């Protein structure tokens, strides 16, 4: 078959994108069509960007960190293209490109900041060499897709090896820190990190298991090893007041995000923005912009329901769940946990056994829901956490939860597909931002 001319392919793709938007459908399908008709489309378009491509990858925090990085770079006056729907496949990027391009085929941007999951990033960097990579962490997650955590690390090593400008690495995650050896000669390395006082708040997956249970295992043997200087180090925080060491200088700002892990992601985004902006970076503007970032959908997002706040906390893996639990006093909230095991969640729910739920014991859990509601209830029973109701159907569960919450603010810990379904349910009774 003769290959279609480029503008025709693009216009066809844009037409399909418009039609799928009308029926409210999936975000990647038009990109799939583009990929089939014109395989080099994404690489060709992104190669034209004057500041190149940034890839953000890692297990936890990609969406929030990408959103912050985009905002920080825009504050530096850059026009930023991003795949903000979180459809982080190459075809998702293609679909996003089609949406951003004018009908004459011009992509009006200086730089692309793309969230890519590890497996898709490996595929992506074969087609497009990133100028920058921000690699966040390697945790147990979706092992039924990627096999082993060491496999995940190897995927990130391929991203580091393909990056031409600067790789930004998490100094406190041993699997990420060791990626420095894969960074090619001529490519720079920048670090973001934590002060010694904050490191114990982030136990690695290797610290988790010992006779005392998940919490007793932390032995930070690597504390004594010398650490490279970080471009951005998170020194301390109290509520939303955050102290950072930026290139060695202490600064203070506010970050209105939920939980210490999001504040650490803000440090990561700042380190990336400094690397991109270079010596001319407008530092006061970056710090001012940091205090304006808001959570990405489902990542600590708060929705008003009947005059009371309901917070959605996406949980995907043990480390993320542990950090979410530790971010507030559970007794002050009505609590729901929704666990689905659809493909996008990961079919395997074994990871729930690696989360310590003792902090919920005192206040209990109001409702447990989702396709694996009974697994979750069984897990809570093993940590002797009282559960008021087990209601697998999410719509029903949400109504019972809201009705029973009384005056308490509400927190829902939810897996990915259950979060999407809860947002749909909530949009019937509350204002929910479009995603």
């Amino acid at each position, binding site marked *: 078959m003769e290959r279609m001319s480029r503008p025709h392919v693009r216009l066809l793709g844009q037409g399909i994108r418009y039609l799928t938007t009308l029926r409210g459908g999936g975000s990647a399908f038009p990109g799939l069509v583009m990929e089939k008709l014109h395989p080099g489309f994404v690489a060709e378009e992104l190669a034209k960007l004057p500041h190149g491509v940034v890839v953000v990858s890692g297990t936890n925090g990609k969406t929030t960190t990408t959103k912050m990085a985009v905002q920080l770079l825009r504050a530096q006056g850059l026009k930023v293209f991003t795949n903000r729907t979180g459809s982080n496949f190459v075809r998702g990027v293609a679909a996003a490109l089609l949406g951003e391009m004018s009908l004459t085929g011009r992509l009006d941007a200086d730089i692309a900041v793309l969230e890519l999951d590890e497996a898709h990033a490996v595929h992506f960097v074969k087609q497009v060499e990133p100028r920058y990579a921000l690699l966040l962490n390697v945790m147990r997650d979706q092992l039924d897709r990627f096999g082993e955590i060491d496999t995940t690390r190897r995927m990130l090593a391929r991203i580091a090896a393909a990056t031409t400008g600067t790789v930004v690495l998490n100094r406190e995650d041993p699997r990420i820190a060791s990626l420095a050896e894969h960074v090619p000669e001529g490519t720079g390395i920048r670090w973001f990190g934590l002060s010694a006082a904050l490191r114990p708040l982030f136990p690695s997956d290797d610290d988790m298991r010992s006779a005392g249970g998940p919490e007793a295992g932390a032995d930070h043997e690597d504390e004594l090893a010398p650490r490279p200087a970080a471009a951005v180090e998170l020194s301390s925080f109290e509520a939303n007041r955050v102290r950072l060491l930026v290139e060695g200088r202490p600064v203070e700002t506010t970050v209105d995000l939920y939980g210490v892990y999001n504040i650490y992601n803000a440090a990561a985004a700042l380190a990336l923005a400094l690397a991109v902006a270079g010596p001319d970076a407008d530092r006061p503007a970056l710090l001012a912009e940091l205090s304006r970032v808001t959570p990405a959908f489902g990542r600590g997002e708060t929705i008003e329901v009947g005059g009371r706040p309901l917070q959605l906390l996406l949980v995907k893996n043990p480390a993320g769940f542990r950090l979410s639990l530790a971010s507030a006093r559970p007794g002050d909230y009505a609590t729901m946990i929704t666990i689905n095991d659809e493909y996008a969640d990961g079919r395997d729910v074994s990871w729930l056994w690696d989360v310590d739920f003792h902090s919920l014991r005192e206040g209990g859990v109001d409702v447990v829901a989702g396709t*694996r509601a009974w697994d979750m209830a069984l897990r809570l029973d093993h940590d002797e956490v009282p559960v008021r109701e087990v209601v697998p159907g999410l719509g029903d569960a949400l109504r019972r939860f809201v009705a029973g919450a009384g005056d308490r603010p509400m927190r829902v810990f939810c897996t990915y597909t259950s979060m999407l379904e809860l947002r749909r349910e909530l949009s019937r009774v509350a204002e929910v931002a479009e995603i």
Partner: protein
Amino acid sequence: MTERSIHLVQLYPKDMNIYGDWGNTLALKRRLERYGYAVRLSDHDPGDPFPADADLLVGGGGQDSGQFRVQEDLQRIAPELRAMAADGVPLLAICGLYQLLGHEFRTASGEVLPGIGLLDATTAAGPTRLIGNIVLESPEFGTVVGYENHSGLTRLGPGQDPLGRVVKGAGNNGEDGTEGARVHHVVASYLHGSLLPKNPAVADHLIRAAVERRHGSFDAEPLDDTLAERAREAAIARPR
């Protein structure tokens, strides 16, 4: 009255604890406590003196790198482990530790990790991972449900009993319909993480063996396993 106690030992929790293996330890501990026993829980990691007074042993899955790290220590304690197993000490071995209880494990890179020959089984890395929900029928324990995720393909010797026959899923090697292995009070399986919480019959077999050996008899009231039963029904109904 002195409280009756059981010494529960985790084998290699630092290196071999992937896929929620903590759930197995926790299920044993919680059930023993609910049956009225005090539980002393300790860890055996490489280089530690082996706790010869262990009543119940449990060990989990690891990545290849973890298996390399524990392999030498496992050879060191092999004589004691074999003697204890023959003496009726119950042992649960999941995934990586299961492979090392056999004769050998040949990795994808061609290296051969010697096992300790407690089971008549041999494992070699396969071309793809066998991943998904799995259901077995076991002659001793009835329906056993869980999740498997392994690239090692295990073949049992002619006299070696499996844990069960696969109803849904791949099992030891995806071909002969067997899953896991059984000898004395040793239960070995690829079903990770939630094996014991969701399969109380297997947990109680190990507990009974440990308690009878240490205290002479086990006659506790049955526990309410409604949550486990519902979780089993849900798991069986889910896609592979």
